[in-house]
């Protein structure tokens, strides 16, 4: 039974439980709602909550766990010869799954019935799959077909068990809530506690997400370091992955990638910090109300533009311009994608980020400090340079650190603007590459989660996560420390 039907049935059960629980509660007090402990709607809500929450929870867990257990048991039953040389169990499993899907659609389209399934030969199923355009990783073998048949049978019977279990649980929960639905039952307290638990669960998703990120990164990184030495990864200066199947050892040194990342981020910050800071100072200290109300939103539009737009801007406008105007005439190379291109465009992206953060911080400096400085005869610029900026310095440093973390984690601009060649070079008009670019290139297309060339992306991701997390924590620490001075 498809998922949408189960959900629909659950919704119906929930509605019925709501109506029944409410009317029963009212009936127990002879229709006089004033004698109920809670408002009638709470009895109804209690019925619906009891019917739906456990059933939906079971459904979610079942859907998550079933494929894992099923895969494991089918793999265990697979005869030793079923995995061909050079192939992996995962590839065989995905073939098994595809054949099972083929059987599914074969039955639903009426090509054969359940009873005929036992007698189907390898050729029959192969022809059926080919006619539907399903491509298998390797030629269909008898073992795979047997495994697929038992997989298909287990899957269809499990899906029936799941349907019955989920709907049964919903019915039991609903019936229990209805039976408890009497006038003296404290329905509001129960419902409110249930809602509170749901809200706590929602708040915990943030922790689960972080946990998921950290665990998935750590787990795969550990896999990677089992196949590749960590000293090579952190200290080698060459990045040249060989693609699996072509032979030859890969050299996966992170240093050229880190160098490209830092070089591009530095250029971005050199562009963004002065412009952003001066813009913030001008807008908060000098600009008239009218000018401010026009210019500030305009600059903030830059922050709302998706990074892919900046990437395309780098690719079609900035890159060719820099190449024709500077790189080629100066003899510094003729590549449109370069550190300079990516750095400049990323700098533009960061301007509103720096300026709006600094703006907040400058506005938080107490007016008394400005007045004091102006009263002593300082000009406005002297006040800003010698009083406001020093007072706001920790906040500004925090803003710059946050901008740096943004720059390091930025992906689309560097994918489109910086190029893909990993090199350690000083020439800013040369194409270089970053950590994020390599994560994208190692994880898109055909990936094999047993080879170090794919797994290295997780190690790169972990490095990136640790660096940006460190910068964020440092920035928050500095900003918090600064805030205490004036409150």
């Amino acid at each position, binding site marked *: 039974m498809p998922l*949408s039907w189960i959900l629909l049935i659950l919704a119906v059960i929930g509605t019925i439980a709501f109506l029944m629980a409410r009317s029963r509660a009212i009936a127990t007090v002879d229709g006089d709602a004033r004698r109920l402990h809670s408002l009638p709607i709470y009895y109804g809500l209690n019925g619906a909550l009891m019917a739906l929450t456990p059933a939906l929870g079971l459904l979610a867990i079942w859907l998550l766990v079933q*494929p*894992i257990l099923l*895969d494991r048991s089918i793999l265990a039953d697979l005869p030793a010869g079923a995995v061909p040389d050079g192939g992996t169990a995962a590839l065989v499993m995905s073939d098994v799954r595809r054949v099972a899907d083929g059987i599914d659609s074969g039955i639903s389209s009426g090509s054969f019935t359940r009873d005929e399934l036992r007698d189907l030969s390898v050729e029959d199923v192969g022809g059926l799959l080919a006619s539907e355009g399903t491509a298998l990783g390797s030629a269909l073998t008898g073992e795979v077909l047997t495994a697929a048949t038992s997989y298909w049978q287990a899957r269809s019977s499990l899906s029936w068990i799941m349907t019955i279990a989920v709907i049964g649980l919903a019915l039991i929960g609903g019936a229990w809530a209805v039976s408890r639905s009497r006038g003296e039952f404290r329905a509001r307290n129960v419902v*409110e506690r249930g809602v*509170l638990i*749901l*809200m706590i669960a*929602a*708040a915990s*998703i*943030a*922790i689960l*997400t972080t946990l*998921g990120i950290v665990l*998935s*990164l750590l*787990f795969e990184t550990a896999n990677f370091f089992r196949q590749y030495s960590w000293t090579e990864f952190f200290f080698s200066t060459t990045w040249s992955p060989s693609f699996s199947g072509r032979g030859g050892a890969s050299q996966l040194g992170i240093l050229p990638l880190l160098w490209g990342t830092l070089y591009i981020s530095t250029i971005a910050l050199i562009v963004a910090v002065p412009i952003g*800071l001066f*813009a913030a100072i*001008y807008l908060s200290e*000098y600009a008239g109300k009218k000018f401010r109300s026009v*210019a500030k939103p*305009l*600059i903030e*539009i*830059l922050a*709302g*533009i*998706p990074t*892919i*737009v900046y*990437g*395309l*801007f780098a*690719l*079609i*406008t900035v890159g060719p311009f820099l190449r024709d105007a500077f790189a080629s005439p100066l003899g510094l190379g003729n590549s449109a994608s370069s550190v300079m291109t990516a750095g400049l465009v990323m700098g*533009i992206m960061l*301007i*509103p980020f720096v300026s709006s953060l600094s703006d907040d911080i400058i506005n938080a400096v107490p007016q008394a400090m400005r007045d004091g400085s102006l009263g002593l005869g300082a000009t*406005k*610029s*002297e006040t*800003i*340079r010698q009083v406001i900026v020093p007072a706001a310095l920790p906040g500004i440093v925090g803003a710059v650190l946050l901008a740096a973390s943004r720059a390091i*984690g930025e*992906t*689309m601009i560097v*994918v*489109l603007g910086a190029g893909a060649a990993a090199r350690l070079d000083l020439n800013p008009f040369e194409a270089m590459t970053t950590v994020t670019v390599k*994560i*994208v290139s190692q*994880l*898109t297309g055909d990936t094999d989660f047993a080879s170090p060339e794919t797994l290295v992306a*997780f190690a790169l*991701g972990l490095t990136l*996560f640790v660096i940006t997390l460190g910068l*964020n924590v440092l920035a*928050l620490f500095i900003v918090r420390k600064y805030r205490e001075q004036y409150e």
Partner: protein
Amino acid sequence: MTDATANTAPAGAGQGSLLIKDSRTAKRNGAEGRFKMYGLIAVCIGIAMLILLLTSILTSGLSAFWQTTIQIEVTLPEEKLDKSGVRDPEVMAKVTTFGYAPLLRDGLEATIAANGIETELSAKDAAELISDESVAQLRNRVLRNPDLIGQTVSVEVMASGRIDGFYKGRVTYASAERDTNISPAQLQLAEALEDKGLLNTSFNWLFLTAPDASDTRPEAAGLGVAILGSLYMMLIVLVLALPIGVAASVYLEEFAPQNRWTDLVEVNISNLAAVPSIVFGILGLAIFINFAGLPQSAPIVGGLVLTLMTLPTIIIATRAALKSVPPSIRDAALGLGASRMQSVFHHVLPLAMPGILTGTILGLAQALGETAPLLLIGMVAFVREYPEAPWEGGLFDPATALPVQVFNWTQRSDPAFVERASGAIIVLLVFLLLMNLTAIFLRRRFERRW
């Protein structure tokens, strides 16, 4: 002391008339002027960059919304398209596009002859003016309406990418000399057709509705699947992130006790807001695809990843909105005997709703433009099939997304795809503009200040 200071003060400084500027005052005023100028320049650079960015995208992308078409008369002979004569689309589907291609070629030749245009091109070379995609379009049209067979119909076919580029200034006679895909003679033929009014440029609806096309047919590439995929993902983000985000913020803002656990959640949320988006892509790949076994390229995975990514944004905005509701509202409700839950759900939450919706829309806008995590979960695949409707399992069908389609097109060699990519960005920016305008409208119209 005072005397001593007065005596040691340097002569000249601060002792002249207030009406005459001394050199030091002039210097300080100069510094003031320069400082102010730097600020103004910085603001102007920011605005200039915005204008430059937008004009660069607009100039290279607007032309994607126009398409050159050629009007030709095509005869649809029965003996070639439907030998059985029963007009059954299932039987007629056996004639592949190879059966239709000669018809268009003959049709173009006949049209050229009928209009008295002279060309030295062979029928085969002349047919290169027509996009390969038009053959499939003609076939679909005939299959939908079998009665057309046996008639001579007037069809508007798409011109090939190079001819289209010629009318958009991308291809010139000089570049055609060096191009193996187009010759100057073909361009002359196109101009001759234009003189007869057979070659026109019209609004390109297919760009918004058609699916992606292969490398060699940039003229046929459209955004249909990408827009649908983005829409599905926005739907998932809205359905999941709004309730979860609101529930989490209500708990943290109104109910959470001050303890370690709450602190941990708060630190987590502020850190998640600053985690690079690509890390969420790695999470999606590892958890949703490798561990939970969800299909690659599916909107459901993209939607889940984007939900996790936008949750912190929505939570931060919702908490700010809840904070801005004055405590007196809560106190009044509690004083009248409402429970805490009732005071929040009956009074605080409705008053905070405009702020929450504004924050949600901004979170959705951020999710709509996000590219990097979607690349990792396989949404960069070439998809020509529209996904099914959401209630028919379409959330699990392969699809692409608008920003990913942009990236996909930038990776192709034909320069016509740059135009398509910029056009797709214009579509994306229009969507973002609409969302932001809605958010501004909500804020202006409903936000209350206490």
